[in-house]
């Protein structure tokens, strides 16, 4: 599914979080939203997801050319992975993953057998087989991260949105998971956007990078393009590039 963001603006209690942001994500792309704290990147991600809505004349969101600006998150088939995972701590890993399937109306709900099969499949996909009966509090950060991903994937989303996916993890785990996420993306081919403030992460992982600052896009392009030709002083400062 392709994503088009058209002139999105969002104000929180007179604070302008986003100011006329537009971008396009091609089908199957892995895009990074990069920027310092307060740049508006998570807000943009949440608006694309349907967890926030722009102001009345605050722009539009299109998924595959369909205007979804006021559609709910679920209606958009957008899978969202929260920064602190938001796993349901009172449910087992298996129940977490199956949640999206079990809340469906009887007509579209898969059978219990089918659900169990999908749980196993998804756990295998995120390389955490056998953890169905554990509770999230018994898992490490990296494991919880992948369970959150498996849970989002269970409802077969068309796009995947990750909010600072590795922010809460320590350096070694972060590096490993980075590689893993890239391989995962190549395997599944899902259009994916992730938010980060870590430029190494953005440049290493993404096909395209969009740099945000104070609610506006500073530059967007492939990692190579941005690094070789920073568009303005903010970008070169932020990336630590010396001026030539």
């Amino acid at each position, binding site marked *: 599914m392709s994503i088009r963001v058209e002139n999105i603006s969002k104000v929180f209690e007179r604070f302008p979080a986003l100011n006329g942001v537009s971008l396009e994500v091609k089908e199957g792309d892995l895009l990074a939203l990069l920027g310092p704290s307060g740049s508006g990147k998570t807000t943009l991600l949440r608006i694309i997801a349907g967890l926030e809505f722009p102001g*009345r004349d605050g722009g539009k969101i299109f998924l595959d050319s369909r205007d979804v600006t*006021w559609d709910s998150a679920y209606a958009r088939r957008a899978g969202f992975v929260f920064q602190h995972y938001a796993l349901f701590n009172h449910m087992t890993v298996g129940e977490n993953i199956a949640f999206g399937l079990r809340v469906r109306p009887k007509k579209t709900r898969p059978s219990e057998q089918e659900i169990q099969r999908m749980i196993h499949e998804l756990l295998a996909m995120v390389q955490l087989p056998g953890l169905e009966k554990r509770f999230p509090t018994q898992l490490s950060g990296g494991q919880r991260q992948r369970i959150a991903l498996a849970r989002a994937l269970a409802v077969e989303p068309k796009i995947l949105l990750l909010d600072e996916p590795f922010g809460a993890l320590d350096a070694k785990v972060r590096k490993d998971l980075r590689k893993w996420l890239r391989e995962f993306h190549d395997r599944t081919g899902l259009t994916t956007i992730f938010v980060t403030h870590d430029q190494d992460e953005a440049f290493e992982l993404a096909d395209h990078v969009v740099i945000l600052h104070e609610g506006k896009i500073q530059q967007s392009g492939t990692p190579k393009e941005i690094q070789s030709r920073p568009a303005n002083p903010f970008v070169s400062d932020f990336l630590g590039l010396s001026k030539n």
Partner: protein
Amino acid sequence: MSRSRTHVLPGFHLSLGFTLFYFGLLVLIPIVALTLRTFSEGFPTFWNAIFEERSLASYKNSFGLSLLAGGFDGIVGLIIAWVLTRYDFPFRRALDALIDLPFALPTAVAGIALTALYSPQGWIGKFLPFKVAYTPLGIFIALAFTGLPFVVRTIQPVLAQLPVELEEAAACLGANRFLVFTKVLFPAVLPAVLTGITLAFGRAVGEYGSVIFIAGNIAYYTEITPLLIVMKLEQFQYSAAAGLGFFMLIVSFFILFMIQILQTWNARRSGGRV
């Protein structure tokens, strides 16, 4: 297709609607009724009810003693909160749990218990050369009893969240313990102390059950304002009762307003969330 007020989570209209309905029906409308009744017999009745001798005498008890009790609770409460957050000793958890006792105990029970203790033949009363029960002192004790948890529970979180570095920095700069307390620690907890005292005061002003037993309700001496309201109601002087009640309600609103301001000040000063 475009809805200007879309919510991500469900149930906005249902929850807010029910909340406003319940609150409006059970609280707002009755208060409006009270207000209307207050002035149904004209302003003079209202004015007389508030300013007659007996009412004025009751204010000394209801407001004056509440303020004193609040102040007393402020001092004692600060000590207790200090001890609970900073020291460790056997039965600390038990002591901490006991603080909430006045909150969990029914007012009438507290009332008769305090009377049993401080009446002239009471456990403590019989050893004292002066009367406690049936005097304003008795009322004071009852009000101090009711208000203590409010002060302690307001100060505790603020004390607990005070960064240790503050005192250590002051100490490094050469301040002795007394100075550290008066110049660094006490100013930091002052908003909490004042907020707690206001809460205790607000609670004490309207207190009925814990007070009327130990007060003895001697006319012009140990009557509290809520008691006067009850008496007027029993004599079917609805408007006068409403007048006094309305007056107390205004005071309550004012106290509530002050509490909001103080709590905001307290939160800002202690860096916590409101």
